[in-house]
């Protein structure tokens, strides 16, 4: 049994919360007392039907306003897979929340209202999926019940969307017709959609192949912590273990490695997981490495395999999603965190602002504020090892932190 993290993109109007509610409800992940609470709340509303959307709105303000503000995480499993849903709001003023939810997702469900077809919001969500490099895209054409389950409507939307997918270079795109409200094609197959022969949404989620999503060729291990038992025990006296989570690649005993940014070379003396020595370990395992040579390594260093090394530089080109209410100001200094490494940095240039609805580039942007996405050049105070986000998600995503408030203010996808 493995694990799939996915994000649902759409707004209340598209039936996003209803879709999640339906998935949980039909896969029997909602328990009796939760259902009872739901019924109680639904009764306060006008129509009396159980409002599955209420399941996902966790904060009081959200329930009061009937909207999702923040990313909520939901869990369910089937005998085949465990699923983690990042339920993120879809409106443009919550772009940063969607970017946050998308950062860890293997798959995105893009909801399209069958009555409206591909709209601005569909484009925006697809652009974000592309920027964040989500490997799998499911285009769920919802509210099929309101268009008489028409195959033509479905086909036309799929044709329209294929254009977007092509422009954005989205790799694995799958379409399916659903009605979240009626439960058509979510968990149960629908006889009203008998012209559709593909899998239901749940089947799709269970069958999406995840193996290739993990990079096993580019060895990257950010050192989080150095384990030194410091005991009198003779065997452990010289023990020095570099603890971290392998973000990509495979590490074996005897492998030649380089420690960046210093560029020191050594070989792996032992690989340990859970306190036991193993022959090899791979992403995304948490491990402890011991090296043959006694070299100076501390938190923030990156242990890489000698083949496929990352770049080490002090200047990075990034796509930057701004996440703070205070504007981004060119020339301001921020802390940049990538993996376990934190360096001081300055935003040197802002090349253009990206219109997240149209992909148009504005080369003379005004103020850069919350939710804006720009192409920028960042200079770091010391050399930083990094990968291109598009090639290696785990090695090319960084955050910017305000030096005075310590708030996370930006997400960088390194080019």
């Amino acid at each position: 049994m493995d694990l799939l993290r996915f994000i649902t993109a759409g707004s209340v109007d598209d039936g996003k919360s209803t879709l999640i509610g339906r998935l949980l409800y039909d896969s029997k992940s909602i328990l009796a007392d939760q259902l009872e609470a739901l019924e109680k709340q639904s009764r306060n509303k006008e129509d009396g039907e159980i409002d599955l959307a209420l399941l996902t709105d966790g904060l009081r303000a959200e329930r009061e306003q009937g909207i999702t503000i923040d990313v909520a995480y939901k869990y369910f499993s089937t005998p085949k897979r465990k699923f983690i849903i990042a339920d993120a709001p879809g409106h443009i003023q919550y772009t940063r929340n969607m970017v946050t939810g998308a950062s860890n997702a293997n798959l995105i469900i893009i909801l399209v209202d069958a009555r409206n077809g591909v709209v601005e919001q569909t484009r925006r969500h697809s652009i974000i999926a592309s920027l964040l490099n989500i490997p799998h895209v499911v285009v769920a054409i919802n509210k099929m019940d309101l268009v008489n389950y028409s195959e033509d409507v479905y086909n036309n939307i799929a044709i329209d969307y294929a254009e977007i997918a092509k422009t954005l270079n989205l790799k694995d795109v799958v379409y399916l017709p659903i009605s979240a409200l009626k439960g058509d094609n979510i968990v149960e197959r629908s006889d009203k959609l008998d012209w559709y022969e593909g899998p239901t949404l749940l089947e799709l989620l269970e069958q999406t192949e995840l193996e290739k999503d993990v990079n096993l060729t580019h060895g990257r291990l950010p050192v989080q912590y150095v384990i030194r038992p410091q005991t009198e025990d003779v065997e452990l006296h010289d023990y020095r273990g570099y603890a971290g989570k392998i973000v990509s690649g495979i590490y074996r005993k005897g492998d030649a490695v380089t420690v960046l940014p210093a560029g020191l070379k050594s070989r792996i003396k032992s690989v340990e997981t859970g306190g036991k020595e193993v022959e090899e370990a791979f992403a995304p395992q948490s491990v402890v490495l011991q090296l043959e040579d006694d070299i100076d390594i501390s938190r923030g260093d990156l242990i890489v395999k000698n083949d496929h090394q990352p770049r080490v530089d002090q200047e990075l080109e990034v796509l930057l999603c701004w996440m703070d209410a205070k504007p981004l100001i060119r020339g301001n200094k921020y802390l940049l965190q990538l993996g376990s490494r934190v360096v001081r940095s300055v935003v040197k240039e802002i090349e253009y602002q990206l219109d997240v609805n149209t992909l148009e580039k504005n080369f003379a942007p005004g103020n850069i504020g919350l939710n804006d996405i720009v192409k920028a050049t960042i200079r770091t105070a010391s050399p930083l090892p990094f990968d291109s986000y598009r090639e290696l998600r785990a090695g090319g995503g960084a955050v910017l932190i305000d030096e005075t408030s310590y708030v996370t203010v930006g997400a960088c996808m390194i080019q």
Partner: protein
Amino acid sequence: MSTASKYQLDYLDQLESEAIHILREVAGQFERPALLFSGGKDSITLVHLALKAFRPGKFPFPLVHIDTGHNFPEALDFRDHLARTIGEKLIVRKVEDTIKARHLTEPTGKFASRNALQTYTLLDAIEEFGFDACIGGARRDEEKARAKERIFSVRDEFGGWDPKRQRPELWNIYNGKIRKGENVRAFPISNWTELDIWNYIRREQIALPSIYFSHEREVIGYEGQWVAVSPFIRLDPTDQVEVKRVRYRTVGDMTCTAAVESGASVIDDIIREITATRTSERGETRIDDKVSEAAMEDRKKNGYF
């Protein structure tokens, strides 16, 4: 199809690796962290994960128990035994002492719970030892407000959580930078469900306090729940004390944790029962969450775990 290849991690291994990563981030980013230990299965799982994260070294943090004085004796014995066995430091701070020192008002009623008063003792302990990060065993599947809390959750000097001012948390980057007075609650098992915990406990053969398994106990029935007879609850003339075979699904205070009628005496039986049950963990066993829809959100805003 998801055929298991040599280089694919099982979901429990993925959750384990993520939790170890978070524990090591706490160790790497903070000066004085602590692991909040309650004696319940979630914090016992945390200790097991910490062993995997830091052995053969010592834990870079002590275990801290905020003792309400209303705990199950079995859980306290287990706590002391575990700390001794692994040779790590255990700090206990008592709500009783805070009540006396700060002249707090004890709650009253049939099931007078010190649950809310724990926050005072916790904040005092944070100040006493200068803890800048407290690791907790909260899970997002437990409750709707928890579903929205970050893995590194920044709290103000009152321990308060402001859901509207949460930091975005992307990829596997945890921003633990804090200003003076602030501290962080870190939740390594945020993404685990109750069933994940039990499956992990079974796989790793983690020992648990005996009250998690079927045993005979004197209980009274209260609104469809079984509450253990103890000096901490008020027995009324109308209460009927019965002896039932029960087990606990969560271990909190004797005043606010209800037992489940069960004959399950081994983990396999418990997992079978939980898989079949139609009631959530908090719904079945917590007397304190039923008060209002936003009970947990409010407690967190006030500094609760």
